[in-house]
C-alpha cells in the first residue's frame, strides 16, 4: 500500500497537484468552447433555423458581394444565394458564408474569462471584421473563377478557408490581449 505523505501547500510542486486541477482553466475553457460550438452548429443545422435565418443571411451576403462586384466593374445577376455572370457562377453555401468562423469566434469569446462588456464589444467588432474578410473572400473567389478557373478549387478550399479561420484566431488573440482581463489564479 502506498504510504500517504502529507504535503504542505507551501512546499507542493506542480507535479503534486492533480492534472485536472493544475489545468483547470484550460479544461474549463476547452469544455465550454466545445459545448458552445457544438450547440451553435447543431442549432444552425436545424431545418427551421437554416431556412429562416441562415438562408436569408447568406442571400444578404450574396447581395453585398454582388454590389461590390458591380462597383468594381463586374456586374452579376443574383438569384438567392447564387451569383453569376456570362463567364462564371458561384453558389454561396454553408461553409462559405462566414457563419462557421463567426460561431468559432463567438464560442471562443464566450468561453474565455472576461467581463460581459468586453465580450459584447469583442463579439460586435469581431463579427463585423469576420464578415468583412468573408466579403473580400467571396468577391476574390468569384474573380478567381472568372479569370483563373484552374485554381478556383484550391483557392476555395485551402487558401481562403485558411485565411478566414486564421484571421478569426488572430482576432481572438488580439481581443484576449487587448480587452479581456483573465482573473489571477486563486
Amino acid at each position, binding site marked *: 500500500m502506498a504510504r500517504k505523505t502529507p504535503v504542505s501547500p507551501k512546499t507542493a510542486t506542480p507535479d503534486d497537484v492533480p492534472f485536472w486541477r493544475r*489545468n483547470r482553466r484550460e479544461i474549463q*475553457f*476547452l469544455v465550454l468552447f466545445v459545448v458552445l460550438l457544438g450547440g*451553435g452548429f447543431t442549432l444552425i443545422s436545424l431545418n427551421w433555423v437554416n431556412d429562416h435565418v441562415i438562408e436569408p443571411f447568406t442571400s444578404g451576403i450574396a447581395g453585398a458581394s454582388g454590389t461590390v462586384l458591380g462597383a468594381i466593374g463586374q456586374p452579376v445577376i443574383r438569384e438567392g444565394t447564387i451569383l453569376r455572370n456570362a463567364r462564371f457562377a458561384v453558389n454561396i453555401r454553408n461553409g462559405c458564408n462566414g457563419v462557421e468562423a463567426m460561431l468559432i469566434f463567438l464560442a471562443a469569446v464566450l468561453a474565455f474569462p472576461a467581463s*460581459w462588456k468586453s465580450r459584447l464589444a469583442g463579439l460586435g467588432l469581431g463579427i463585423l471584421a469576420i464578415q468583412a474578410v468573408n466579403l473580400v473572400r467571396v468577391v476574390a473567389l468569384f474573380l478567381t473563377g472568372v479569370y483563373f478557373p484552374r485554381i478556383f478549387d484550391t483557392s476555395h478550399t485551402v487558401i481562403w478557408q485558411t485565411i478566414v479561420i486564421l484571421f478569426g484566431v488572430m482576432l481572438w*488573440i488580439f481581443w*484576449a490581449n487587448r480587452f479581456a*482581463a483573465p*482573473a489571477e489564479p486563486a
Partner: protein
Amino acid sequence: MATGKTAAAEKEKAPARSWPLLLIRNALLWLIPVAFLWTVFAPVYNRFLLGSAQNLVRLTEYPSVTDILRKDDHFAYISRRDFPPSRTLVNSFRVTDVHFHLLMIGVLFLSVPGVPWRRRLENLGWAVLITIFFDIFLIFFYVKATYAARLGAWSLAHYGAFARNFWGLGQHLLDLPFKFSLPFLLWIGFYYQDLTAAIRPKAPARPAPTAGS
C-alpha cells in the same frame, strides 16, 4: 543581486508584452513554408488517409464491401462492391479538403514566441498525431453518412431514423465546426498558459472583472 533580478525580470517581461504581435508576425512568416510542405506531402498523406479510413470502415461491416478509391491527387471515390457494376461508385469527396487544417496547425504551433524549439516541435508532433486520428474518423463519418442518408431507398431500407440522424449530424459537426476549429482547440490546449501569462501583465491596470467573468 537585486539589479540582476530586475534585469532578468525586465528581460522576461519584454517579450511578454508583445507576445500576440510576435505570434501574428511569426504566423505570417510561417504561412508560406508550411503551405509548401503541406502541398508536397499532401499526395502521400492522401494515400495513407484513404487506406486507414478504408480499413476502419471495413472493421464495421461484414462482408467487407467498401473501397475508398483514389481518383487523382485530390479526389476519392466511395465504392461498394455489392452494388450493380454501374452503381458501385456511390459518392466522391475532395481528400485535401479533409486535412487542410494541418496547414493551420503547422502555422499556429510553429509561431508561438518565447517557447523553446524542442517544446514547440514536441507539441506540434502531438497535435499532428491527434489530427491524423481526427482525419481518419472524418473520412469514416463521410462514408457512413453517405450510406445512411445519401443513397435514397437503399439508405432508408438499411438505416433507421436514429442512425441516419446520428451519422448525418456527426458528419456535419466533424466536417464543419470541429474540422475548422481543431487547430485552435489544439493550440489553446497546449498554449493556454503561455497566452494567459503573456496577457496577464496588463490585468492589474484594469478594473477587476465584473460578474460573469
